[in-house]
């Protein structure tokens, strides 16, 4: 019994149902495990792998401002709309409680989106397609993103960042290719 010491030798062979179950469970676990590395080669959606240290936050802020000055195409509610070239480095800054700036991307084109926080931890959550990444202060996370559907998308914060957490909504516009 589970509440008494077992007999002197309890190392005994498995019964048929035990063998079968362990074999099936192990097999399924192998599938689930092998999926992770294999999908990095065959799949289009994998957690990004590129990170830089941001020793000086002002340096990152300068990159954001430089990009805004160069690619600004409009403004909405006081936030600049930025239309960077496909393939280029795009910088997005998180702070309490906003995502800055608004991005305008082209459908099917790939961008290197740099995410960093100016104060505390934030969660970069693109809705309604529901993709989520962590944004840390002191680190630059490079997400190589290819939006495949057009429309207006919103970036909400999904990591608690103080009382204004629920106000932290940003915007991302994806335009159909060619214009």
């Amino acid at each position, binding site marked *: 019994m589970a509440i008494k010491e077992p007999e002197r030798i309890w190392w*005994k*062979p*498995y*019964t*048929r*149902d*035990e063998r*079968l*179950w362990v074999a*099936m*469970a192990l097999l*399924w676990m192998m599938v*689930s495990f092998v999926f992770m590395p294999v999908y990095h080669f065959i*799949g*289009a*959606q*994998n*957690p*990004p*792998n590129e990170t830089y240290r941001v020793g000086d936050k002002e340096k990152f802020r300068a990159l954001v401002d430089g990009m805004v000055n160069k690619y600004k195409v409009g403004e909405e509610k006081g936030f600049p709309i930025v239309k960077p070239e496909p393939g280029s480095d795009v910088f997005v800054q998180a702070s309490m409680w906003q995502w800055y700036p608004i991005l305008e991307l082209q459908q099917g084109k*790939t961008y290197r989106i740099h995410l960093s926080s100016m104060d505390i931890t934030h969660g970069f959550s*693109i809705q309604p*397609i*529901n*993709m989520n990444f962590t944004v840390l202060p002191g680190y630059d996370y490079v*997400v*190589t*993103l*290819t*939006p*495949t*559907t057009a429309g207006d998308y919103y970036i909400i914060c999904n990591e608690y960042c103080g009382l204004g957490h629920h106000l932290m909504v940003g915007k991302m516009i994806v335009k159909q290719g060619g214009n």
Partner: protein
Amino acid sequence: MAEEKEKRKDKMEAPGTFALSIIFLVAFIIIWFAHLKWLIEVWGVK
């Protein structure tokens, strides 16, 4: 002793639990593939 061990090897001690376990595994696989479908529908990321 060895004979007893041999006998144990071919026994199906808990067929009911085994059946329940198979149901569990099938549910697991179905839900896993549902998530794979959700994953494929979103944007490209690497």
